[in-house]
């Protein structure tokens, strides 16, 4: 037996991923254990669970692979500290405390906390890990690989050549820090009043309400160089030297005052009773968001054209946080630069753990490529007897639908609940690896009426009214409902593309069509998730609409629920009508 463990940690989303004999047997983010969203701390609990899942101990690991090279990163940070003198003085103490006390000694930290011999620890590179997580999970052999995120060691964007034979991945080109598409988008996220690393989706959602009226000004911040690359005007940004802020007063002079977090967002045409100045402000922010999104999309398309120019291959693989921008992804797919697009579902830093492990397995240890990513439900599951005992102890009314009515009966029952307007918590099997709920830790609802969107936003997720919901739709009927670019077929399986819904269909799925007519679909195939596929099929048979509204099973600010007890607590703490946990249907009881 040979086993390799990948680790991402100490920056964002810590995670662990375990490969045993070439198969990815377990991968999970640390936040699913600690309940701290995007928990960056060393994934001790995730690691322990991965090893237990495979039935092995730390001594059985051939290698542990950290997802980046810490000393190279320190070099970059130190260099920019010097370059930013004297402005960098504010951030210097905090940075040095963290690095000199902890991060510089990552090897020691890994050996101590994970209890493995230090000589078995390997170090990938940040963007190499991302690249591996995209290419080596994809079905493609010869491909261009683009990784775009905030920053790794030095690079913020990198291009790689994927090939069928070792070394499988080779570097081609990169764009250096601080010129970063990811940090540009994050800075604008902060400007628009959302939390960085958290609110980027909201900017994407907000953009649909606006027109890119600020495009000429945004183009001053983010300059495309006409050769496939881009550059930031650093006068407008300070993320490279300021500890708390990411944009300067000059940006405020250019675009006007930033949006305060939590301000109601009421753009034109949404609420006739809203005060006029609030509407005007909201519209301005929507227009800025639309301009930022358009600028990002154009830059990503440029990068892809450059990639095609350097690498003659029909497929493009993508990873890095920017690859989670599903609107940009669909735009890219529609440009026809590449015939196929494959995007790592865990495109953010969590995916670096999987990438680091795959890189070591194939590129360092020399094992041949396998079939790619076969499943995305790589996380923790719970046994049914334990769940039954828990539900019994909690004295909640529940029935074992799976036992009483079999798989098809379960699907029928869920479809009935949904068709009758009930919103349900859906907890099924192993949790997803990555940020999206893909039918294992989801809240499901009837997608047909617009009122359902408001209800789920306001009374279940406790989140802003303007935010859209996504549908899970049967893959076979996808084209009848949306205008999907052919290259986006794979990304759509993982909710990574946002096509336009056909105009004549929009009324039939009002809860999951965004204001601009788009929808971030998840195309569900029976082989990807049979039980979920059966549920949607049963719903389609009842209603003629082959999709359900699917949003992650959590409350605002919480990570997704990971255990049955957490599912029960979330269920009872919200306005959900029913909860399904691995085939048990749970109702409410009085206190």
């Amino acid at each position: 037996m040979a086993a390799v463990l990948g680790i991402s940690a100490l920056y964002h989303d810590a995670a662990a991923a375990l490969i045993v004999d070439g198969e990815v047997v377990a991968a999970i983010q640390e936040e699913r254990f600690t309940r701290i969203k995007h928990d960056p701390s060393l994934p001790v609990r995730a690691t322990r669970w991965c090893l237990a899942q495979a039935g092995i101990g730390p001594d059985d690991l051939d290698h542990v692979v950290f997802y980046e090279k810490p000393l190279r990163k320190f070099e970059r940070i130190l260099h920019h500290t010097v370059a930013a003198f004297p402005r960098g003085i504010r951030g210097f103490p905090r940075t040095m405390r963290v690095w000199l006390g902890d991060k510089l000694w990552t090897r020691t930290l890994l050996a101590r906390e994970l209890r493995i011999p230090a000589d078995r620890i390997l170090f990938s590179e940040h963007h190499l890990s991302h690249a591996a997580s995209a290419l080596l999970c994809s079905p493609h052999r010869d491909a261009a690989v683009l990784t775009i995120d905030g920053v790794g060691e030095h690079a913020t964007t990198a291009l790689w050549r994927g090939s069928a034979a070792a070394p499988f991945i080779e570097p081609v080109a990169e764009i250096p820090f601080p010129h970063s598409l990811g940090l540009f988008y994050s800075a604008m996220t902060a400007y628009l009043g959302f939390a960085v690393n958290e609110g980027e989706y909201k900017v994407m959602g907000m953009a649909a309400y606006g027109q890119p009226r600020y495009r000429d000004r945004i183009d001053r911040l983010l300059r495309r160089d006409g050769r496939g690359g881009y550059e930031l005007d650093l006068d407008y940004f300070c993320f490279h030297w300021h500890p708390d802020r990411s944009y300067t007063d000059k940006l405020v002079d250019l675009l006007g005052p930033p949006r305060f977090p939590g301000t109601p967002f009421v753009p034109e045409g949404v609420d006739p009773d809203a005060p006029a100045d609030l509407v005007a402000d909201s519209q301005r922010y929507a227009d800025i968001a639309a301009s930022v999104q358009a600028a990002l999309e154009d830059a990503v398309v440029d990068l892809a054209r450059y990639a095609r120019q350097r690498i003659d291959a029909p497929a493009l693989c993508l990873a890095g946080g920017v690859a989670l921008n599903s609107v940009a992804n669909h735009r890219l797919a529609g440009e026809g630069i590449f015939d196929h697009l494959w995007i790592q579902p865990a495109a953010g830093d969590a995916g670096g753990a999987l990438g680091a492990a795959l890189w070591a397995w194939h590129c360092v240890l020399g094992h041949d490529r396998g079939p790619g990513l076969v499943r995305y439900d790589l996380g923790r599951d719970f046994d049914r007897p334990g769940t039954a005992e828990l539900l019994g102890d909690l004295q909640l009314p529940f029935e074992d639908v799976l036992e009483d009515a079999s798989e098809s009966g379960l699907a029928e029952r869920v479809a009935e609940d949904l068709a009758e307007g009930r919103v349900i918590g859906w907890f099924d099997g192993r949790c997803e690896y990555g940020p999206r709920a893909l039918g294992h830790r989801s809240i499901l609802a009837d997608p047909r009426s617009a009122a359902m969107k408001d209800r789920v936003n306001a009374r279940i997720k406790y989140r802003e009214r303007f935010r859209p919901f996504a549908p899970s739709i049967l893959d076979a009927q996808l084209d009848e409902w949306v205008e999907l670019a052919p290259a986006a077929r794979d990304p759509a399986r993982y909710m990574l593309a946002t096509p336009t819904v056909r105009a004549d269909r929009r009324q039939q799925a009002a809860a999951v069509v965004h204001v601009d007519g788009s929808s971030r679909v998840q195309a569900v195939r029976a082989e990807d998730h049979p039980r979920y596929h059966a549920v949607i099929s049963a719903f389609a048979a009842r209603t003629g609409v082959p999709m359900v509204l699917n949003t992650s099973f959590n409350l605002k600010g919480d990570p997704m629920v990971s255990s049955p007890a957490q599912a029960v607590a979330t269920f009872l703490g919200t306005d959900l009508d029913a909860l399904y946990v691995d085939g048990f249907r749970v109702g409410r009881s009085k206190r």
Partner: protein
Amino acid sequence: MGIIRRTWIRLAGAWAWRRPNGPVRLMAAFSQAERGSSYDVIAALERTERRDLRRTYLFHALDESRHARIFRRRVQALGRQDRAEAALVDAGSLRATGIIGEAPLFEQMGELEFLAFVYVVESLALEQFQVYCDHGMPDPDTIAALRAIADDEKFHISYSRRELEKYRAAGRGAEVRAALFRVRARRIWQAWLRLSRRLGDAVSTLWLWALYLVCVAPFRPLARVEGGGWRTRDADPRPIAEFARAQA
């Protein structure tokens, strides 16, 4: 003890409510604390051997997460302040403030000590809320929220006290005393850690600033920030095994 403690709460509270942006910061901190407790109580529910306690823990957890939402709404009502809102979603701060430890409290403590912890912490919170309300420190809406929450805290205190009594009645009084002692001692230790950490941060900021001015300044002319755009990159010349072992 009671009087000293109440006086202390009163003095500290007077400062905490009146400092700039004080109410928002307090509400944000309370919201985080309640959310952290909710996680811990759910973890207790999952791990407990006392199956008869599971339902009680569930209701406790639901209370805590509702309280977190109430406090969060107060934050939004009291002022839309950058920092307070950011604090609510800041991933690291729960752990940094010691609200959430590396392992759930229940794993660190075990059943008896966890119950002792609930009893001690909820009693203190109740007392704190009462002092705040009695002296009219918060605004009327916040007082109403605190009073509503205080009713739930009474339930948490009563069930944990009842369970501790059961342990005492079963002849485990010494263990209960020891657990209560450990809980109180740990709170003092953690307060000390927080205080010294804060002090240490302040002092180190000063000398790191000095270091910055003395040691970083001379190199400034040599460092320059690169321009953007694509740079061609060659493969690392080292053999792959060596490259993989290197941290640089």
